[in-house]
């Protein structure tokens, strides 16, 4: 791992809505992502986990330039990613690619796989016909699909095969960083393992760096070097995967881990029912987890806990005034 991070996100913020109406009334705004600071080093997998509505997909879209942050900076390989996405998305797309959650919806139903996979080769790499042909075979081989599948249409593929095509498309331009947004959550468990194994294999083969977004803790645990836990648009805990999963410090991480079903785990410790996310139009001044947190005090409701180093391990940070003890 080199010292300079490949991707660094500094205080990124994305607000949807806002502004004023024609008559000067303020429009409601939602902070989908707030004050997110993360670093991704070359060759590592950063897992981002959180429940629906926590802003993880918005974060992913900002990293690949499909969405622009309303505040903060995203720096990729020393260049300002946001500015680059604005004027030359192609240059960015050669280095940062994206794998979508729904493998079938991300493939145009009226295009053959060849047309879909050729698009990045033509538009991003400007390859000639012969080079393209060679690269297509390479790509299909990399994701374990037979080359004759190239002439078929997306509806002829099962979810797992379609997702491998999605991965092949992301690989086509030979990127440095791939953002995987819930790449296996639409797949059956037996297929999920195939895709995870292929991802693992490709990472080693092509020296890739992954940002792996998922709501499934066990999947994130199995693929990630480092993990960031998001809640209500903010990172509440980040650190080495092992440490975070073994010694969760933030009460939310704790709750997540307790709630996750695992084979052989009989009783799920559930909190009581009044556990809604805060109103996004009217966020609380302090910690967003305040209402659900068993350890909360008045301080939590008044002030936003900063994301600070915690525990012995370097890089393990949690945003909590009253974190759980380390073991």
């Amino acid at each position, binding site marked *: 791992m080199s010292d300079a991070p490949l991707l660094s996100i500094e205080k990124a913020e994305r607000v949807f809505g806002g502004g004023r109406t024609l008559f000067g009334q303020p429009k409601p705004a939602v902070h989908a992502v707030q004050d997110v600071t993360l670093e991704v080093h070359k060759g590592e997998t950063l897992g981002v986990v959180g429940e629906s509505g926590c802003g993880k997909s918005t974060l992913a879209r900002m990293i690949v330039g*499909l969405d622009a942050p309303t505040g903060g900076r995203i720096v990729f390989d020393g260049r300002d990613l946001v500015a680059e996405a604005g004027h030359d998305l192609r240059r960015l797309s050669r280095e940062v690619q994206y794998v979508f959650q729904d493998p079938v919806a991300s493939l145009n139903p009226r295009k053959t796989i060849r047309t879909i996979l050729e698009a990045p080769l033509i538009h991003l790499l400007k390859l000639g016909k012969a080079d393209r042909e060679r690269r297509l075979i390479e790509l299909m081989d990399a994701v374990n699909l037979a080359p004759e599948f190239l002439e078929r249409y997306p509806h002829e593929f099962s979810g797992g095969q379609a997702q491998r095509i999605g991965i092949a498309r992301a690989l086509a331009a030979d990127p440095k960083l791939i953002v995987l947004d819930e790449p296996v959550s639409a797949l059956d468990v037996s297929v999920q393992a195939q895709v995870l194994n292929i991802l693992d294999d490709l990472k080693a083969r092509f020296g890739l760096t992954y940002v792996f977004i998922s709501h499934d803790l066990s999947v994130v645990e199995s693929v990630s070097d480092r993990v960031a836990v998001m809640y209500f648009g903010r990172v509440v805990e980040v650190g080495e995967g092992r440490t975070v999963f073994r010694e969760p410090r933030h009460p939310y991480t704790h709750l997540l881990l307790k709630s996750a079903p695992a084979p*052989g785990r009989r009783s799920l410790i559930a909190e009581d029912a009044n556990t809604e996310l805060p109103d996004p139009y009217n966020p609380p001044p302090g910690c967003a987890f305040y209402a659900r947190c068993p350890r909360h005090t008045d301080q939590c409701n008044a002030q936003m806990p900063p994301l600070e180093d915690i525990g012995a391990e370097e890089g393990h940070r949690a945003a909590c005034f009253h974190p759980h003890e380390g073991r």
Partner: protein
Amino acid sequence: MAEATSTAIKPVKRASSGRPNTLALLLNNTLATAGLVVFGLIVLIALAAPLLPLPDPDVTAPANRLFRPLTEGHLLGTDALGRDILSRLIWGTRVSLLVGISATLIAAFFGSLIGLVAGYAGGRVDTLLMRGIDMVMAFPYILLALAIVAVLGPGLLNALYAIAVVNIPFFARNIRGIALGLSRREFVDAARLSGKSNAQILFIEVLPNVLPVIIITMSTTIGWMILETAGLSFLGLGAQPPQADLGSMLGDGRKILFTAPHVSIIPGLMIFALVMSINLLGDGVRDVLDPRLKSGALTRPVARTAVTRENAPQDMTPVAGAILDVRGLKTEFRFGGQVYKAVGGVDMAVRRGECLGIVGESGSGKSVSAMSIMGLVPTPPGSITGGVALLKGEDLFAASDERIRQLRGSAVSHVFQDPLSTLHPLFTVGDQLVEAIQAHDPVSKTQAREKAIDLLTMVRIPNPAERLKSYPHELSGGMRQRVCIAMALAHDAQIIIADEPTTALDVTVQAQVLSLMNTLRKEHDAGILFITHDFGVVSAICDRVAVMYAGQFVETGTTEEILSAPAHPYTAKLIDCVPVLGQPDRRLDAIEGRPPVVNNLPVGCAFAARCPRAQEDCRAAPIPLTEFGEGRTVRCIHPLTGETTDV
């Protein structure tokens, strides 16, 4: 349901073998076929006009004026100027068709272009274009057409332009709606990341997906356009004399409607036949091309699954203590001559207060098995072809429709995967609960409301009296699922069939819902049939588990036994391929290959092709479900025993 459709969709291969093609589907529709025949005939005759031995339509012969139809030499008679009506009719139809089709093409081109750009660009461009379209639409169409013709001067070509312009908004609005939806789809984002420019995305990615809608809109518009052309010509603004056109012929005949009705009735009938045939055909084309209708929405399933079993089993004594006892259940789907055996002989028994889990991958038939019990599998295409489902000894497949209606939602209730689509979006939660209560219980609205409050309290919804007034979208996913559970418990349910009830929920919410269901089944002493794909969820709630593969149970037993020592290689593989929390270094053992398609099952074990332990005898004959220790069965002749755990 989801299960049923995925079983149905998966087998579609290259040339969509077995599934009727577009033309066959169209010909299936009698009205559309009639339309096609009439329209085809008219077009053929109109095209053949120069070849047919017809007198010149424009030559006047005042001596021969106003002959009645069937006159010698003038089959349909002559008009006020002695011109042959048959000849004028055919030549006029030619003109009307030409104008109608050209106007449609022009309107479709410009309208679709505006719609595509507006829908794709969104924001200001959208507002600007659509407000322009709104302005065009704000004028009554005939007034606008008249205004355009007034400016350009009368004439067929100008009428054509006028009609095209008037119809642009129709296309623009339709296409914009579709393009708007498509532009937010993932494949558009994917194309952008593949380096395509906006124009490339719009015309190469979005347009092909909009094309069917453009064709549908065109097919339903041509008739309308021909009518409008006729209207303008009738007013004397379209075809100019002596040129024949259906509208102008009608206009000519108007003055002598009472003395020589045939002069106007004949072109009138022609317009009627033409427009009617086009509209019937257009509707047929729409039904065939519209993806929503294509998926079978036009075939209305009946209220209960058809039962076509040949002979019910003789032995109807239920397993001791079981409320629900299903034996030899077989459910099939028929699509285009193929039979998909979604469920091929399933036995299960649920006792009071017990939770039986059915675990399997999508397409394994687990949902179809559960839906078959209360006849919720759509017919057509599904039907129950064998077996028996006994609810406390009563054969559900032999019961009357009325009896099933009584049992649904009372003794047997369902909780589905997606609470947002299960609850009606336009009624409050309270209304829906009251309806569910009153469906089986003749109580007053006030009493029902009180019971609804009790139910919501029971599922731990805070502030239940207030929550009754909420609409489903105002509740979170977990709350909605609690409402569904409350509804399922409204009538002392003995069996709750829960089909992936927590799959759409977040983990923390899932844990809450699972522990709620666990508590409630003990409080109410109700059995749960719990369908899931997740062994973690199974561990949390199920007492016994049945693992399903290709429409059959491959292994049953208690949860602990199956999880700690799976006997069937499929079960073992299924457990091994899932990452487990707390074991990040575990090797994920993927199952190679894909499950078999249920219209073409192998003779022997369905898993043999993917099984590392498969031998010759596995493929030779059907494998029976055999006893494997106390209360445990396995469908395998080479099961895993304790010592060989490495599959």
